[in-house]
């Protein structure tokens, strides 16, 4: 059993770099506006939501902070999550050619697919910081927390993608479950409303939702200018650890039968 895929002894760093670059090039080569698309989508969403929740419906208690910035700190993590989770889930099926032809370690495929989304993410975080600067958010030492919480968050999504991509090979409906889940998630993450308006009895649930935890940590850092609450960082770390362990386990159990099922 341990002999399975023993024959691949390549250069992981070189491989990841090439596969991520491949995704990036394929996505942008056929777009006249290229990378601008990564900026336009969140900007449009930000404007529409600002209009709806400030002008049409009326504001909540977040009125002291610039609402567009507030919404964008929620949208960026949410967009990354949904994009990476879906592409990660379908990654093994989408890369059937690789799975059937190259003895490259299978874990590479879903992880690459999540990391490819990090290219957009970096662009969008840069946008967030630029808009923050425009609204008068000044960089501080607290920003050193950004790489920490994002690394935990990306690991958390990698864990989910590992598990879901393996299950999706055997039950093809998995991707539709993930899509529905993402739709629901939009409402239960404090994207367009703030954590403060959530009744006390539901707050614990929010703190344990890793996507919500990241949004709140981002707001701590970028809007309130304070370090992220310890409980949020701790919960993100737990979520990352649990999903990576579970995803790795599920993937490991199923990967030897991918070839026959795709």
């Amino acid at each position, binding site marked *: 059993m341990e002999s399975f895929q023993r024959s691949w002894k390549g250069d992981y760093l*070189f491989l990841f*770099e090439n596969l991520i670059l491949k995704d990036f090039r*394929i996505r942008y080569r056929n777009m006249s506006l290229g990378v601008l698309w990564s900026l336009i989508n969140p900007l449009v969403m930000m404007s529409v939501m600002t209009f709806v929740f400030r002008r049409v419906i009326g504001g909540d208690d977040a009125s002291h902070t610039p609402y567009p910035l507030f919404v964008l700190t929620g949208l960026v993590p949410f967009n990354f999550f949904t994009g990476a989770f879906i592409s990660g889930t379908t990654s093994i099926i989408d890369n059937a*050619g*690789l799975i059937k032809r190259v*003895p490259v370690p299978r874990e590479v495929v879903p992880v690459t697919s999540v990391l490819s989304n990090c290219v957009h993410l970096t662009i969008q975080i840069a946008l967030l910081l630029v808009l923050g600067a425009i609204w008068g958010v000044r960089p501080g030492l607290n920003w050193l927390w950004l790489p920490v919480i994002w690394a935990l968050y990306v690991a958390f999504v990698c864990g989910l993608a590992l598990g879901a991509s393996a299950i999706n090979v055997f039950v093809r*409906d998995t991707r539709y479950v993930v899509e529905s889940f993402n739709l629901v998630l939009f409402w239960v993450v404090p994207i367009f409303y703030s954590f403060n308006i959530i009744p006390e009895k539901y707050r614990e649930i929010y703190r344990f939702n890793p996507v919500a935890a990241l949004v709140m940590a981002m707001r701590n850092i970028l809007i309130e200018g304070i370090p992220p609450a310890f409980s949020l960082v701790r919960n993100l770390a737990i979520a990352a650890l649990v999903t990576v362990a579970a995803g790795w386990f599920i993937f490991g159990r199923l990967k030897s039968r991918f070839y026959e099922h795709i």
Partner: protein
Amino acid sequence: MSCVIRFDRVTKSFVHHAGRMLLRERLRHLFHRAPAEPFYALSDVSFRVEAGESLGLIGGNGAGKSTILNLATGLVQPDSGTIEVRGRVAALLELGAGFHPDLTGAENVRINAALMGLHRREAMEKFEEIVDFSGIRESIHEPLRTYSSGMVMRLAFAVAVATEPDILLVDEVLGVGDEAFYQKCLERIREFQKAGKTVLLASHNALLIRNFCHSALWMDQGRVVASGKSAEVMDAYQESVIAAS
């Protein structure tokens, strides 16, 4: 002599899963456990290949040749039996894995090289050699979709042989491409053999195996019919083919 490929009583079956990938079928399957009929691609196959030896695999469609190559590459796992493969393997099974039509030839070469297990420095050093061997230098920065299928083949073969494998697994891919390139590929395989590398060659073509391999394995429906010196096995194989027709 040391043995680099060893199959010991290897059995591999496949179950047909067509139309059983949706949740509905999964649930139904839970309640009515209909035993699926497995298809034995290989039954109890044993052989060994010594370092520097070339083994030819011959047999009709469905004989199990490709399954042997896939098992040796590590793409699939056997049901039972053990497989040992020592050294770096390059499989010329289905060339051009990971090639994408929208990327240029040069970009595809890098991706393919990384997938084949080349390290960064090796890939840099070998790039020129790969382009030279493929003979398509003038279009290397054009998108792959503008290439003819022959050009794609050349590029894929060029990357595969540049990985300097200890063991070369060859399926009948060599049938593609023009005559001149075909000869170039055969020449390259000869060079491998001269350099003391091991070759496992699967083909329908008895003449090719006679010319290239010291020994041969004749497969039929997943079982070994005969094995031994290439000339003797090919004689027996060709006799049976003539007798059957």
